[in-house]
Every structure is written in structure tokens, then in C-alpha cells.
């Protein structure tokens, strides 16, 4: 009897791997609120104390740090998971919200909404996130129209070239809109473009969370399909994957989570490109692990980066995008070297 086994994924390995990433996130999110420019006393913060308004510790913890940490976790999860999915669908490990023009599209959408002074809500989403999502989708539609030639697959390097071009174009359009804005709007726009996680209250969090969770759920549902699509459109078709549906749902979900987050935080680079790579080096390329692990690792990564951003040069803050690059780059090289 052949007893030799071979590497494969099963429920036990899945729970162990995804569970570990979840535990890391839990630990990071438990530790991060206690770190900051002002020391807070947790016991005092949690005690009923003299009433919430006078309880400085509770104020810092609940009104400043926690919402910001939740925002960082949501943003990190969204950017990382959409990076992983873009890479799979485009079969290119350089695909990310930035290299595909999605960040640029989202930025332009948001900036136009700010400039035009749109102020409405649709299905619970306010105008800026909505415009941002539409911008992300528009960018993807333009980039994909380059690659849609009937019956033939263009090399995915064309897509990236198109994506980078679109991103530059949208960045210029953002500058143009900014140029024609009054000083108040311009300040709002520049502030937004710098990116940041400190703009949040709980109400904003509650509008970002549902689209992010919905998008992540769709991507987890598509995970095994993504394995096959990442190996080629035609061979995926031959294995019974409805490729057009997977591409459409996958790109919609990835744009939804990116748009929802970028609209509020502004563009934060590097997370979508680097987190999927790091996670892939740890758990392998199977998207059933890669997608949920990227969610938790991306969240942990950005919470850590933001903690560093607000404490390293305290009381001054460093833009979180600078930290993601400084931390992410060397770590990535180290993993790459160790693996090969």
C-alpha cells in the first residue's frame, strides 16, 4: 500500500495557518493602543472614573487611538487583499493598486468630489468614498480595455504599462483639479493626498467596514478559482473555471475595498505590493491561505507601521506611507534572500 503522501491543503492546516495570522493581528491590535506619545493608564482608562469627559486616559484610548487603529487595520487588510487578488487575476506579481492605476483613479474620484463640493449619501456611503470607488473602477476599465482583444491574451506587462500610464495621467488630473480649487478645497485635497489614518471617528469606520468586509468575503469565496486563474486564463477555462465571472467579481471586490479605504485615508503605497509577497513566502501561493492571511497580515502590518509613524518622532508624526516603505522594503529583501 502506497502510504507516501504529498503536500496539500486540508482543514487542519488551514485553521492552523489562518488562525496564526489572526492571533498575530489580535496581539498587535491589543498592544498598539497602549503605545503612543502620551502614556496612558489602562486601568484608569477602563475604570468608570470621574466620568468620561474628565477621564483623559479613556479619551485618548477610545476617541483617538482605537478608531485610528481600527482604521489602520481596515486599510491594511483592504490594500493587501486587493494587491493579492490583482496579482492573481493579472498573473503578474508587480500588480498592485498603484501599478494598475486604481489608486490614481480612486484619488481623482475623491478629489473631484471634494472640488465639486458633492455632499450626498447613497446606500449609506457618502459622496467622497463613492466617487473614489467609481474612480477606481474607471481606472480598471480603461486599463482592461487595453488588454481585451478577442480570443487573444495580451502579455500582462501591457496591462502594467497601461496601469502606470493611467496612474500618471490621473495624478496630473488631480493636480489640475487642485490648481483650479480655492484655498480651502486645495488644503482639503492636499491633506487627503498625503494619506493618513488619523481622520476617523466611529461613524466613518462604520461606513468603511461593510464594503471592506463584503469585498473580503467575495474574495475568500473566489480563492480556489483564483489559484487556477493565476495559472492562465485558458488552462483555468479547461479546468472548469468561469474565468470571466471570476475576473469580474474579483476586480469589482478588490476595487470596492480599495476605493472604500483610499477615499478615507488617501493613497498609502507599498502595502498592496509587498504584503502579498511576504505572505506568499510564508504560506505559499494557494489563495485559500493567501487571501485570508493577507487580510490579517496586511491589517497587522499597517497597524504596526502607523504605531511607528505616530511614536518614532513624537510629538511629530511621520506620514505612514514613509514608514510602510522603510519597514517593508528591507523585510521583503530579507525574506527573498532567505528563501532562495
Amino acid at each position, binding site marked *: 500500500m502506497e502510504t507516501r503522501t504529498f503536500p496539500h491543503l486540508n482543514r487542519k492546516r488551514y485553521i492552523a495557518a489562518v488562525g496564526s495570522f489572526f492571533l498575530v493581528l489580535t496581539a498587535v491590535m491589543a498592544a498598539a493602543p497602549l503605545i503612543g506619545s502620551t502614556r496612558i493608564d489602562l486601568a484608569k482608562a477602563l475604570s468608570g472614573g470621574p466620568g468620561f469627559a474628565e477621564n483623559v486616559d479613556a479619551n485618548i484610548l477610545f476617541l483617538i487611538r482605537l478608531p485610528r487603529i481600527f482604521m489602520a487595520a481596515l486599510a491594511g487588510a483592504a490594500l493587501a487583499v486587493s494587491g493579492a487578488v490583482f496579482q492573481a487575476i493579472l498573473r503578474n506579481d508587480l500588480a498592485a493598486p498603484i501599478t494598475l492605476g486604481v489608486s490614481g483613479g480612486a484619488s481623482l474620484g475623491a478629489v473631484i468630489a471634494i472640488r465639486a463640493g458633492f455632499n450626498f449619501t447613497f446606500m449609506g456611503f457618502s459622496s467622497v468614498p463613492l466617487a473614489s470607488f467609481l474612480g477606481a473602477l474607471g481606472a480598471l476599465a480603461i486599463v482592461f480595455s487595453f488588454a481585451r482583444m478577442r480570443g487573444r491574451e495580451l502579455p500582462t506587462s501591457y496591462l502594467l504599462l497601461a496601469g502606470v500610464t493611467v496612474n500618471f495621467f490621473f495624478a496630473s488630473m488631480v493636480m489640475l483639479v487642485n490648481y483650479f480649487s480655492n484655498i480651502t478645497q486645495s488644503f482639503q485635497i492636499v491633506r487627503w493626498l498625503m494619506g493618513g489614518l488619523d481622520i476617523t471617528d466611529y461613524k466613518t469606520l462604520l461606513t468603511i467596514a461593510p464594503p471592506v468586509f463584503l469585498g473580503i468575503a467575495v474574495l475568500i469565496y473566489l480563492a480556489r478559482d483564483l489559484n487556477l486563474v493565476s495559472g492562465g486564463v485558458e488552462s483555468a477555462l479547461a*479546468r472548469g473555471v468561469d474565468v470571466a465571472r471570476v475576473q469580474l467579481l474579483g476586480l469589482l471586490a478588490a476595487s470596492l475595498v480599495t476605493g472604500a479605504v483610499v477615499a478615507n485615508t488617501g493613497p498609502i503605497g507599498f502595502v498592496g505590493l509587498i504584503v502579498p509577497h511576504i505572505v506568499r513566502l510564508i504560506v505559499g501561493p494557494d489563495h485559500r491561505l493567501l487571501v485570508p492571511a493577507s487580510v490579517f497580515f496586511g491589517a497587522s502590518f499597517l497597524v504596526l507601521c502607523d504605531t511607528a509613524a505616530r511614536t518614532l518622532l513624537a510629538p511629530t508624526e511621520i506620514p505612514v506611507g514613509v514608514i510602510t516603505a522603510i519597514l517593508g522594503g528591507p523585510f521583503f529583501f530579507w525574506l527573498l534572500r532567505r528563501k532562495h
Partner: protein
Amino acid sequence: MNAASAESSVRDTAARTLMQISDATFAYATQPVLSGISFELRTGEILGVIGPNGSGKSTLLKLMGGILAPDSGSVAFKGKDLGSLKRRALARSVSWIPQEHPMVFPFKVSEIVLMGRHPYLSPWAFEGEEDFRIARQAMELTETLQFAERGFNEISGGEKQRVMIAGAIAQEPELMLLDEPTASLDMKYQMEILDILKKLNHAKRLTLALSIHDLHLASKFCDRVVLLKNGRIVKDASPEEAFQKEILETVYEVKVKIFRDHDDGSVLISPEL
């Protein structure tokens, strides 16, 4: 059912048409690739798709695998138009193996083979014991089990081809389509691949359709060949009948000499310089 009628129904199945291609036409953008293609594929046979570069061989195999849909005409599997079949259902009956296997991400050999079980699994399910058994069997048959743990991108071209065949076997298909399975392989690897395919054809009565450039190998291996030129069928016959001097000279536009191997009746074709 008594023994005699059971036997006759088996014989009926044996002669049954597995795939029917009727007046199929296909064009990329405005460039016609296939026109007026009609033939049928019978259960258990090995069909060679033969022709010069650009004659439409790969496109024909893609039409047969439902990867592409014909612009006009039809491709039917067991009497059902491919367009009316669900992709998952089709993948349980027909498998298709491309010529090249670019893989961006570092999947292991075993993971690639298990992907053949995709059409049998619901979206949330993991592969189960049955899937592992089938995948292991496919890897044993293709002698790929010994490097199941290696990265797909770390193995040789011939090994990759065998792994892809293992994945296709894991689909448990009735028809396997292969685009140039022996191209760019040396003689030893070519023979390994053809041996595996012959075994599958005998043991599982798997019907095979493959494009192949080497006419000598084709005449040894195929029961029947379809000769294509400029997207049209020039000849649909046994290799002995199809590989005639005049026919080949028309199809390939070179002068040829034909030698017969009297041991197995295969033909050797030598172009004249």
C-alpha cells in the same frame, strides 16, 4: 439486462461518436483561422491534428475543448453543444493541455495536479480522501509522484508536460486534448509522453486528440489524422492513407520522399532539399 445485450451495448458505446464538429468557423478579429471544419471523433480513438505552422491546429483543439466558441457551426460533445454545457460539467468530460505552462506563482507539483479536481469541488470545499487518491494515481501513472513536493517552476519541460497530463487525468475526462505535447522535447521525453498517453488510451479507453509536428511519430501513434491547411481540412483519414506524397506536398509546400517502415507500417517522411 442479460449478458448478450450488455455486451452489445458496450460495443455500441465503442463505435459511438464522442464529439461532432459541424461546419465550424473561427476568426481572430478579422483574420480567419478555421473555416468549414467538419469531422467526428469516435470514442476510444487517437486523433492526430496535423498541419504546418499557422494552419489552425491549436485553434481547432481550443474549439474542441470549449476554450473558444466557434463563430458559426457547432461543436457537440455526446450530442450536446459545448455552449449549452456548464463549464464545470464540460471539465469533468473534456480536458485540454496547452503547449506552454507559464506559472507566475510558486505552486508545488502536487498542488498543480490537485487543481484537476477543481470541477468536482464546491467553492468552500477542500480536497478530500477521494481527490487525493485520484491525484496520487494520476501522479503514479505519469511517474511524477517522486517530485510531488518540488516547485512546478523548478522541473524540466518534459516533467512539466507529465505533471500537466497528471492534472488532466485527475479531471477524470473521457476526452483529452493536447496541443503539441511532444514539441521541444528530446526523443526520450517524447517517448515517455506518448507511452503515458498510449497507456491511458488502452487502460481507461480515453479518447485522445493531439496536434503533433513529427509525422513519423504521428503515423506510429495515431489511429486517424486530420490534415489542416489554411484553416481547412485537406484530408481526414488513417495515417497510411493521409501521408501520401501528393497530399503532403500540397499541405507543406515542399517536395518529400516517403519511406515505409515495414515493421509497424509507419511512414518516414524526408523533405527534399
